[in-house]
C-alpha cells in the first residue's frame, strides 16, 4: 500500500480538526450498527515489484493478438495502432483529467471532443455527433431508443439477423422494460437480410441494420432506407468505420442515425473494453442525442473556444426526463480515435480499407481451395466472412489452431444454430500474405479430431 500521509501529518490534521482520534470522527459519523468491525478479507497488500511479477505471469497465461496471429473479428479487430496514438493518450493531462465542467481549464479535452465530433460527421456523412458512448452495442441501443422517442408513439422496432447478435441481445434487454415489439428479419441464404423491408409497417419506429453486416456481407442500405422513410420510420445503421475508406457513408445511403464500435480506430482489443460507442445523426435529432456534446462558442474576450453544450438534454439537469442516463463517456478512447484518424487521413483510411478488402479476398481464396471448407455465403464481403467446416468440428478446429499459434475465428453456433458448423473470420491490414498462406496450410493440417498431426 502506498499512502500519502505520515503519522505526523495525521496527528497534525486531527489536532486542527479538534478530534482526539480518527476513531472519534468515524464513531460520530457511522452508527455502531453500520460499522464493519473486522478487516476486509482480501489478499495482502503487495509492492509494485511483486504485483508486476504476478500480473506479468497472469498475462502470460493468455493467448493474445501479440502471441498469436489473429483472424478474429465480430466487432473487435486487430488493426494496427500507430505509436503516436499511445504517445498522446498516455499524457497525464489527458488521462488524469475529468469531464470538462470548467471549460477554462479543459480546453484540451473540449477541443479534442469537438474535433472528434467533426471527424465522426466527416466519416459518416451525417450532421452531428456526440462525444462518444460506451461501446458499439449500447450505441446501437441508444440509437433505437432515440428513434422511439421521436416515433410519435410507434412501438415497433425492426432489425435483422445479420446485425451483431450481441447488439440485438442488448436491445432485447433494454426494450424489455419499455413495452416495445422487436421483430427480426431472418438470415437469407446469401448471408444478408434482404427481407427486412417486408417487416416495415406504419407502426415501425425504426429499422436497425448493419452494413457491412455481421458476416462481412453488404446490405442494400439505400433501398432499406427508402422503404423505411416511406413508412415514416427512421433508419439506424451499424457501420464499420474502417469500411468507409471505400464504401459509401451511412449519411449518403439514407441512414438517419449511424452507430459504430470505435475500437477499430486506434483502441486496443483489451478483452472487450473499454471501447468506444460512435454515434452520429441528422440535425433534426440533435436534441435527442444521448451523451456529452462539445460545442463552439466565444469567451468574454471574444476568443473562440469550446464548452459542453445542450446540457439540458442530460440527466444531471433533467434527471428522469433526460434523453439518457449516460453520464460518463469514453473521452480517452475518443481521443485515441481522433489521433488515429488524424494520422490516417483520407488516403490512409482508403488504403487500410483496401488492404482489409484484398487480404480478406485472398484469405477466402486460400480457404476455398481446401477440401474441408467452403464459403456458405456468396457475394462480396468486407474484412470478414463465414467459413463452413464440412467435418462440423468447429470447436476442435479452433482449439487445434490455437495450439498452432492462431486465433483462428469465432464459432457461430452459439448465436446461429443453423451455422453450427461455421465460423467467422476477419482479416485486417496487419495480416501479411505469408501469414494468410501459413494459416491456410495450418488449417489443412488439422485432422477432423481437432488434433494437429505431429503436434
Amino acid at each position: 500500500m502506498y499512502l500519502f500521509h505520515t503519522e505526523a501529518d495525521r496527528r497534525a490534521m486531527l489536532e486542527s480538526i479538534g478530534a482526539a482520534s480518527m476513531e472519534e470522527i468515524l464513531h460520530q459519523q457511522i452508527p455502531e450498527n453500520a460499522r464493519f468491525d473486522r478487516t476486509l478479507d482480501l489478499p495482502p497488500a503487495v509492492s509494485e515489484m511483486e504485483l508486476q511479477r504476478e500480473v506479468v505471469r497472469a498475462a502470460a497465461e493468455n493467448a493474445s493478438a501479440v502471441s498469436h496471429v489473429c483472424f478474429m473479428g465480430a466487432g473487435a479487430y486487430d488493426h494496427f495502432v500507430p505509436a503516436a496514438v499511445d504517445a498522446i493518450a498516455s499524457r497525464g493531462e489527458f488521462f488524469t483529467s475529468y469531464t470538462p465542467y470548467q471549460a477554462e481549464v479543459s480546453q484540451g479535452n473540449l477541443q479534442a471532443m469537438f474535433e472528434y465530433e467533426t471527424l465522426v460527421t466527416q466519416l459518416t456523412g451525417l450532421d452531428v455527433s456526440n462525444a462518444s458512448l460506451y461501446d458499439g452495442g449500447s450505441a446501437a441501443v441508444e440509437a433505437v431508443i432515440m428513434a422511439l422517442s421521436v416515433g410519435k408513439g410507434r412501438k415497433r422496432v425492426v432489425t435483422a439477423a445479420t446485425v451483431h447478435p450481441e447488439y440485438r441481445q442488448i436491445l432485447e434487454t433494454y426494450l424489455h422494460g419499455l413495452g416495445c415489439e422487436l421483430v427480426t428479419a431472418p438470415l437469407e441464404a446469401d448471408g444478408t437480410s434482404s427481407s427486412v423491408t417486408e417487416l416495415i409497417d406504419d407502426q415501425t419506429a425504426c429499422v436497425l441494420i448493419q452494413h457491412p453486416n455481421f458476416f462481412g456481407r453488404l446490405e442494400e442500405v439505400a433501398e432499406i432506407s427508402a422503404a423505411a422513410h416511406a413508412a415514416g420510420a427512421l433508419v439506424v445503421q451499424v457501420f464499420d468505420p474502417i469500411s468507409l475508406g471505400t464504401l459509401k457513408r451511412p449519411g449518403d445511403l439514407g441512414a438517419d442515425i449511424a452507430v459504430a464500435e470505435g475500437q477499430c480506430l486506434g483502441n486496443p482489443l483489451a478483452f472487450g473494453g473499454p471501447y468506444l460507442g460512435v454515434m452520429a445523426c441528422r440535425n433534426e435529432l440533435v436534441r435527442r442525442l444521448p451523451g456529452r456534446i462539445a460545442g463552439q462558442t466565444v469567451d468574454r474576450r471574444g476568443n473562440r473556444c469550446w464548452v459542453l453544450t445542450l446540457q439540458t438534454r442530460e440527466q444531471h439537469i433533467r434527471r428522469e426526463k433526460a434523453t439518457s442516463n449516460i453520464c460518463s463517456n469514453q473521452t480517452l478512447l475518443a481521443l485515441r480515435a481522433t489521433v488515429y484518424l488524424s494520422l490516417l487521413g483520407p488516403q490512409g483510411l482508403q488504403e487500410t480499407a483496401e488492404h482489409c478488402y484484398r487480404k480478406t479476398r485472398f484469405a477466402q481464396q486460400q480457404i476455398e481451395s481446401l477440401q474441408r471448407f467452403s464459403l456458405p455465403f456468396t457475394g462480396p464481403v468486407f474484412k470478414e466472412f463465414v467459413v463452413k467446416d464440412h467435418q462440423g468440428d468447429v470447436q476442435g478446429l479452433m482449439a487445434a489452431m490455437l495450439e498452432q499459434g492462431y486465433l483462428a475465428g469465432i464459432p457461430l453456433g452459439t448465436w446461429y444454430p443453423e451455422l453450427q458448423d461455421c465460423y467467422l473470420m476477419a482479416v485486417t491490414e496487419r495480416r501479411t500474405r505469408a501469414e494468410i498462406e501459413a494459416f491456410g496450410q495450418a488449417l489443412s493440417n488439422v485432422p477432423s479430431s481437432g488434433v494437429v498431426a505431429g503436434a
Partner: protein
Amino acid sequence: QSTQLLFELSRSGRRAALLPDLDPEVAAAGEDLPAEHCAASPPPLPELAEGDVIRHFTNLSTLNMSVDTHFYPLGSCTMKYNPKRNERLAALPGLADVHPLQTDESLQGMLRLLYDLQNMLAEISGLPAVSLQPAAGAHGELTALMVAHAYFAKRGEDRPVVLTADSAHGTNPASAAMAGFETKAVKSNADGLVDLEDLRSKLNDRVAVFMLTNPNTLGLFDHQICEITAAVHEAGGLVYLDGANMNAILGLSRPGDFGADMMHYNPHKTFSGPHGGGGPGAGPICVRDFLEPFLPSPTIEHDAEQDRYRLQYDRPESIGRVRSFFGNTGVLLRAYFYIRSYGGEGLRQVSEDAVLGANYLLSKVKHILDVPHGERCMHEFVASASRLKKEQGTSAMDIAKRILDYGFHAPTVYFPLVVDEAVMIEPTETESKETLDAFAEALFRVTEEAGDLIHEAPHSTRISRPNDVAAARKPIVKWTEGD
C-alpha cells in the same frame, strides 16, 4: 498552433500513417467491390504529418488541468492520484491485446484476475454476487434496476415505482426511467439526511426500489441507515446503494451489512482508474444471493476441482446482456491492481485518510464559507456561497472560476441541488496537508476579493467565461469550412 483545429492545419497531400504496398498476388485476389457500394472518394478527413499531429495534441493537453498536474478537489468525483503502475500493467500484451471472444482455455490468466476481482468486490461490499459487465456507474444503476425488475416480475409483484433521494446524482432518476420505472423523490431533512417520515409515507407495495447514496452527496453518513433499509425491506422493496462515495467507507462499513441489496462501484473513482477526460469508467454491481440469477450474462465461474475458470453464458433467468463483450476490462483490471496494492488494512487506511483529509479541510473552510450540514463529514463536504453572494456578490461560480487562477481546479458547484450556491469539496486521501493548506489559503483570499477580479475570473487561462448560452442557442457542434 494548438488553438487551431486539426482541420485548419490540414494541407492536401500531407500524410502520417503509411501502409505497405499490397503484394501483387493479394492485390489481384478477386474482383473489385461493386461500384454501387463504393464512395467516389474517401471521407474528407484532415491531412497532416505525424509531427503536426503530435505537436497539436501535445499542446492541446497542456490546456487541461489534471490530477497529474493540479489539486482537483471536484466533489463527488474522487479525483485521486492514479498510480502509474496500473497503466503499465494494463498495457501488457497478454491483457491489452486479448480478443473478447477468445476461448476460455486461452484466457485463464485474464479470467483468474477478473474472478478474483469479483470476490474482492463482494467482500468489500458485503454483497456476494457480482457482475463486472456494466460500462459505467449509471449503467450499473440501470442494470441493477433491470435485475430488480426481473426479480419482482418473477415474484409476480407489480412495483412500478423507484424512489430516489432529492440529493441524489441525476443518473439515479434517469436510470430508473430508462429501466421503465416511475420515479419519486424522497426529501432530505434539515440535517441533509433522508427524511425518514417522507420516505415512510412513500413506501408501499408499488415501490420496487429505494435508491440512495450513503455517504450521501453532502458527504454525510446517514445515521438512520439501518432504519431506512429496514423500512424499505418491510415494505417489500429493495435498497439500491449508489456506490459513488465508496471511497469513504472501505473496510469501515459495508453496504450489504447496513441493508443494501444492490449497489454499483465506480472503480474509476474508488479504485483509482484514471478519469480520462470523462471516461472510460466502469460500473460493476454487487447484489444479494437471491438476485444473482438475474444478473447479466456472462459471469465468471471457477471450477475448483480442475482449477479452471470459465465464462458462464447459460443463465436462464438473467436479464440478458447489457453491453457487448465482457465489460470495461481495462478499467476493471486497474481496480484489481489497486486493491491488490492495498489489501484489507490498506483500503481501510485509504478511507480513513480520505475522511481525515476532508475533515481537515472542512475545519479550515468553515471559517471561510458556511458549511450548512455538519461540523464533521466523511470524504467530502458541501459549503455554501449563499451568504457571500448576498453580502459581496460572489457566487459559487465566481469562486470556482477565480480559484483556477490560484493553480487549483475548481470544486464542484451547484450540486447537490439541496444546498444553495453549493461548493462541494472532495480532497481525497492522496493530497498532502501542505496542498490542503494552500488550497484553504487560496479560498480565503478569493472570498476577500471583489469586482472584476472575481466576476471576470479566471485571468490566467487562455480563455475565460465562455458564452454557454450562445453555445446552446445556436449550437456549433462541428467544424465547417469558414467557421
